[in-house]
C-alpha cells in the first residue's frame, strides 16, 4: 500500500466501510437478479456521489474535490473488492477527458453534473471486440457523428458519451441518433454496441494530439485499480478458505504445495499493487504517464488472470458453484483484462514506448 496522507486514508476507510456494510457481493447478486440493462442500483450510485466519489478527480471550482487519481483509485479498489456495480469508473474516465480536453464552457456545463452524480457518462473508443485506438472509423461531419462503437461499458445508464472519432474526442448526449444494442457479457454488467447515426457532437478541442492516449491511460489505471481490489479479495478469501477447509484430517493451509502456491500469488499481488499504485501516482505527478499506465494495466492483467484462476482451483468444487462468490471475480476479471488493452496489446505498447 502506497504511503497515504490523512485525507486519503479517510477516503479509503470510508469507501471500505461502505463497500463492506452497504455494498457486499449480495448487492451485486440483487442487481443481477433484477436484470435491468443498466445493471446497477441507482440509489446506491446516488449515495456514492453524495459522498463525493464521483468528483474525486474533478477540480474544486467545478464541484469536485480534486483529490487526484491515487485517491480515486483507493475508492475504486474498495468497490472492486465487493464487485460493486456502478458507473463510477466510467464516469470518472469520461470526466477526465473533459478535464483534459474540454473548453471552459464544456467544463462548466458537464463537470458539476458528473461530480454530483446527476449525469452518468462513459468513454466509447473501440469498434471491435479488441481494444485498438488506431482503428477508428467513426467520423464527424457538420457537427454530426456517425459510427459504431462496440462493447461500450455502462452504456445503458449513460446520459453522455465521450466518443473517439477519427479527428478527436466528442461529447454526444444520449437521444436522437444514438441507439444501443445490448451485449450481454459474462460479468452481467452493462455493455452495449452503440450506433451513432448523425448524432449531435461537441468536440473537445483542448488537450493536444495526445488527448485520446492520455484519456486511455487514465482509463487503464482506474480499471487496474478495480482489478487490484478484485485480486486482493480473491487472494484473501482463498487464504481464509485454505485455513478452514480440512481434508485428510489436515487443514489445507498446512500442505506445502499449497503454501508455496500462495507465496507465489502473494508475490504476484505485491508486484500488481506496486504497479497499479505507481500508475495512479504517475497520473497525479504528470510524469511518465504512458509507460507507468501500461505497466500498471499489464501487471493487473497478468496477476488478476492468475489469481482468479487459482481462486477457483484452490477452492475446489465449491468454487465452481454460482452460490459461491469466487466465480463472479473470474468472469469480471476477463472482461476487465480485455478493457483498454489486453496483455498482448500492452506489451506491444510497452515495446513501442521503449522504441523497440
Amino acid at each position, binding site marked *: 500500500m502506497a504511503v497515504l496522507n490523512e485525507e486519503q486514508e479517510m477516503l479509503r476507510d470510508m469507501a471500505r466501510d461502505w463497500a463492506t456494510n452497504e455494498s457486499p457481493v449480495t448487492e451485486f447478486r440483487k442487481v443481477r437478479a433484477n436484470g435491468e440493462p443498466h445493471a446497477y442500483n441507482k440509489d446506491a450510485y446516488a449515495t456514492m456521489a453524495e459522498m463525493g466519489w464521483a468528483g474525486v478527480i474533478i477540480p474544486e471550482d467545478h464541484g469536485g474535490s480534486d483529490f487526484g487519481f491515487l485517491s480515486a483509485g483507493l475508492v475504486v479498489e474498495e468497490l472492486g473488492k465487493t464487485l460493486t456495480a456502478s458507473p463510477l469508473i466510467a464516469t470518472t474516465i469520461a470526466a477526465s477527458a473533459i478535464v483534459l480536453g474540454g473548453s471552459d464552457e464544456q467544463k462548466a456545463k458537464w463537470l458539476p453534473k458528473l461530480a454530483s452524480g446527476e449525469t452518468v457518462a462513459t468513454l466509447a473508443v473501440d469498434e471491435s471486440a479488441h481494444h485498438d485506438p488506431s482503428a477508428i472509423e467513426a467520423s464527424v461531419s457538420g457537427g454530426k457523428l456517425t459510427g459504431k462503437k462496440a462493447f461500450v461499458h455502462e452504456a445503458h445508464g449513460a446520459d453522455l458519451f465521450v466518443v473517439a472519432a477519427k479527428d478527436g474526442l466528442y461529447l454526444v448526449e444520449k437521444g436522437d441518433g444514438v441507439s444501443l444494442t445490448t451485449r450481454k457479457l459474462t460479468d452481467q454488467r452493462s455493455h452495449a454496441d452503440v450506433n451513432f447515426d448523425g448524432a449531435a457532437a461537441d468536440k473537445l478541442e483542448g488537450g493536444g494530439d495526445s488527448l485520446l492516449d492520455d484519456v486511455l491511460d487514465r482509463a487503464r489505471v482506474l480499471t487496474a485499480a478495480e482489478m487490484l481490489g478484485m485480486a486482493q479479495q480473491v487472494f484473501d478469501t482463498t487464504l481464509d478458505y485454505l485455513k478452514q477447509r480440512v481434508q485428510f484430517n489436515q487443514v489445507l493451509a498446512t500442505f506445502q504445495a499449497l503454501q508455496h502456491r*500462495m*507465496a507465489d500469488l502473494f508475490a504476484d499481488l505485491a508486484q500488481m499493487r506496486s504497479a497499479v499504485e505507481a500508475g495512479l501516482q504517475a497520473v497525479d505527478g504528470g510524469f511518465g504517464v504512458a509507460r507507468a499506465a501500461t505497466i500498471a494495466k*499489464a501487471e493487473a492483467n497478468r496477476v488478476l488472470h492468475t489469481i482468479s484462476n487459482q481462486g477457483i482451483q484452490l477452492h475446489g468444487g465449491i468454487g465452481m458453484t454460482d452460490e459461491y462468490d469466487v466465480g463472479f471475480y473470474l468472469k469480471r476479471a476477463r472482461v476487465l483484462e480485455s478493457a483498454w488493452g489486453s496483455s498482448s496489446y500492452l506489451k506491444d505498447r510497452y515495446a513501442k514506448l521503449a522504441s523497440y
Partner: protein
Amino acid sequence: MATQLEPDIHADEDAFRTEVQQFLAANFPDELKNKGNALAGVDGPTDETPAQKAWREAVGERGWGTPTWPKQYGGGGLTKAQAKIIDQEFAKAGAYNPIGGMGVMMFGPTLLEYGSEEQKMEHIPPICRGEIRWCQGYSEPNAGSDLANLQTFAEDKGDHYIVNGQKTWTSGGQWADKCFAIVRTDKSDKHRGISFMLIDMDAPGVEVRPITMISGTSPFCETFFDNVKVPKENLVGEEGQGWTIGKRLLQHERTNISGGGRLASMMGQSLGDIAKKYGETDAAGELADKVLRDKIADFEIRWNSFLLTARRAVEESKAQGGVSEISSVLKKLGTKLSQERSELLIEIRGLQGLGWEGEEFTDGELEAVRGWLFGKATTIYGGSTEIQNNIIAKRVLGMLDHQ
C-alpha cells in the same frame, strides 16, 4: 589529505553535500572512475593498486564507507539523509565505496547488535577501514537449507574451544582474514546447541580449498577445521544463542541479495536496445522477431513492477517504523527475474551469447555467460526460493497458525 572534520549531524544538507564534493575532489583518483570495488566482492584477491589503497584509506579514515555506523567504532556517525548524500555524490563522481564485503553487509550490523563492547572495539574499526575481510562459516555438506543440522563441533576447554568439522560454500574463504561461524556447542539440542563464534582463518588447523563452479570461477571454498583453537572471547552473545544471532545476520544477507539500487543499475541497459544491436529491425524500427520482442516486453514490465515493489518496501518500512511484509518477496522475485534476464540475453545473442573465452567475444558477452551460470546460485543461497516460500507462508500468511 584534508583536515578531518567532526561531522555535525545538524549541519544542513547543502553544507554536507559541499563537504562530500570537496572530499571527492581532493581524494578520488581519476584512474578509478567508474570502476567497481574489487575488495567488496568475493571473487578476487586483495591485491590493491596504490590508488585503490589511498582511496580506501581516505574513505575509511572518515568512516564514510559505513556512514551510519557509530563514530566510536570507526563509522561515520552520520544520519541516513547524510548517507544518502554520500551515495549520490559518489555516484555522480563515478566513485565506488571502497569499504565493503561481508564485514560491512552482514557481520558488522550483527556484531553491533549482539557483540560485547570489547568485541565491537576490536572488530568494527578494521571493517570500517576496509582492512579485514570476513567470510561466512554457515553451510556444511549436510546442512544447506536445513542449516540448523550443522555438525561442526566446538568443544569447551575452559578458556578456549577446540573446533572440528567442515564448512562449505565459504564465499571468499581463500582471501578472508577471519570467519564468523555458527558451530555446535551442545549436541543434545538442535537449535539451542548452536553458538556464534569468530575464527581466525590463519589459525593452525584451518584449511581452505576453493570449489570450481559451473561458471568456471571459484568464489566459494570448502573450509576444514582440524583441532582449531578458538579463544572464549571470540564467542558472540551467549553459548546457545548462535541460531538467533545467525538468523538475524541472514536477514542482512537477503536484503543485500535482493538488492535494490545496485541490481537496478546493473540491469540498466534495456534488453530491447541490446536486441536491436544483435537482430533485425523492421521498417518501423521495431524488432523483426516479434516473438522475442513480446518476451522482452513481458520481462521488462515484470522487472519494472519488481523495482517498484522494492521501492514500496522501503517506503512502507520507513512509514511503519518496521520491516514491511512485502520485503519477504524481494529475494525470490529479484533473483528469479535476474536469472530470466540472463536467459533472455542468451536468446537475444544466440551462440554469440554463449562464449566461454576468446577474442571473438566482447568482455560484456563473456561476463554475461559467467553471470548467467553463477546466477543459478542466487535462488539457492541465502535461503533458497523454497525456503523463502516457507517463510512467507508461515510468517506473513500465517498458514501454520491453526495446526
